């Protein structure tokens, strides 16, 4: 659809309202519960192990451009980098987008400074590896092997190169944790990584890791939004089923109108 209609005003309006409301109430000090996400607990372990072994880590923010997914990947990177800086370990961040590259570099520098070790920050660890999908993949494969990384994290948009990266990481014996909103690549990460974050656990990751009230509130708001969608679908299914049984023309007309509104 080119422009919003009533369906958009109601549905997106409700979702935005719920998310903002939950953020505000969380900021006001309401305690919120978040279920366990096992793969994310493994991040600390991977960082600790890499420090013990004296080998670096690798974090790939995916091959997406400067978009919402990459921003979320950078938020996760921020958490990992401050862990790494605390342990005085190393993390190599190969990037494919110049803007993602600059933000990653700034985040890394800040994290080392905040942990009192600005001299431990090495600018060469944040890499820009061209904008080409498979040139990027070949570069990451090279880094995985040459640096003998002890842990690899893949968070962001991944496509066909997902399996190339994670299989090579597997070969060098790295602990690997991955998460991507590209659902078709999830099975390949599951097959070759130790932990895989599935679906929108990817967007829950920064809230889970930082326990920041704003993010926790947003996450609960997202749950309510999904509940709205679910209720809407259950109602639609009930109506469609009722229609097959009774054949009321009014139900048919209503369903047709809703479908038209939702499809623009």
């Amino acid at each position, binding site marked *: 659809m080119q422009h919003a209609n009533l369906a958009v005003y109601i549905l997106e309006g409700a979702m935005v309202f719920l998310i903002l409301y939950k953020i505000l109430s969380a900021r006001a000090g309401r305690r919120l519960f978040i279920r366990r996400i096992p793969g994310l607990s493994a991040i600390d372990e991977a960082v600790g192990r890499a420090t013990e072994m004296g080998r670096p880590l690798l974090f790939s923010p995916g091959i997406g451009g400067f978009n919402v997914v990459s921003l979320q990947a950078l938020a996760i990177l921020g958490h990992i980098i401050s862990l790494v800086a605390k342990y005085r370990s190393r993390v190599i961040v190969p990037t494919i987008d110049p803007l993602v590259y*600059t933000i990653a570099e700034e985040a890394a520098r800040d994290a080392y400074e905040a942990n009192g070790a600005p001299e431990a920050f090495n600018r060469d660890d944040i890499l820009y590896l061209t904008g080409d999908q498979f040139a990027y993949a070949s570069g990451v494969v*090279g880094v995985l092997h040459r640096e003998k990384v002890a842990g690899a994290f893949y968070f962001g948009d991944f496509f066909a190169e997902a399996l190339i990266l994670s299989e090579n990481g597997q070969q060098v014996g790295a602990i690997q944790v991955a998460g991507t909103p590209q659902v078709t690549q999830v099975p390949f990460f599951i097959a070759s990584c130790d932990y895989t974050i599935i679906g929108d656990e990817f967007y829950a990751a920064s809230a889970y890791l930082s326990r920041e009230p704003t993010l926790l509130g947003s996450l609960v708001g997202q749950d309510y939004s999904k509940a709205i969608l679910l209720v809407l679908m259950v109602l639609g*299914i009930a109506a*469609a089923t009722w229609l097959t049984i009774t054949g009321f023309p009014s139900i048919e007309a209503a369903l047709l109108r809703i479908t038209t509104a939702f499809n623009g």
Partner: protein
Amino acid sequence: MHQLASFIEQHSTAVILWVGAICTFAIYSVLYKENPYYRLAEHIFIGLASGLGIYMTWSDVLKPKWWDPMVGKGQWWWAFTVAAGAMFYFMYSKRNAWISRLIMGGMMGMGTGAAFQAFANTYFPMVTASFKAVVPTVLKAHIPRTEPGLGIDLALSNLLFIIVLITVMAYFFFSIDHRSRSMRGTASLGRWFLMFAFGAMFGSTVMARMALFIGRLDYLTTEWGPIVPLWLWMAAGGLLLLAIGFFLLRPRPPKKLDEQPAEEVVPVEPVAEGGAQAS
């Protein structure tokens, strides 16, 4: 110079085929292990791709959208974008790094403002597409209005579709504890369905990926192969046999296979914690 030029131009097809074949072998060598040839190919690859990136940024973006309107059509105001672009480079300044954040913030704003339209266009149709009837039409006497001829098979499939959809969505509720009584069954059922779907995605991708490999083999055998002299084929075949022989007969350190079977493939013991993932 002239001779080189005319040689290249005359033999450019053969040169392209040879360069392509060498690059192909260099990349495939990484399957055995990371080695200097792969490393060289990787660096050349990144170099070529960056070079092409620079050239394409000019020829596809800056020239048609910026230089031509500005210089060719007198739209002088495009010069302002230079200042905006220059703001990125302030990230290297200690005191004025915030200027780069200003332009970054602007770019982020543009991306996020468009998210509302993207959401409506991507996910709204999915909502209505899920309005599926789950009762076969044979159960009642009169004419069906929508979905005429909904047979038992389709009705059952629809029912399964909806169960999968609901349980999978339930798995992704974060503010409800999965250990709670109401959620335990639903969420774990959702996870089972997820794994089943992942298997299907994996299985349906194999064919497309194999076709890519067949494509490379086809390139090597039908395009590059015919221009390769016979003696080279034979030498290469001999070398390959030798290499395989060496690999099979290579001295191996004695290992206690029965005690630590996972060691050879995965030097680091995987963090085996229940429920994290399937492998």
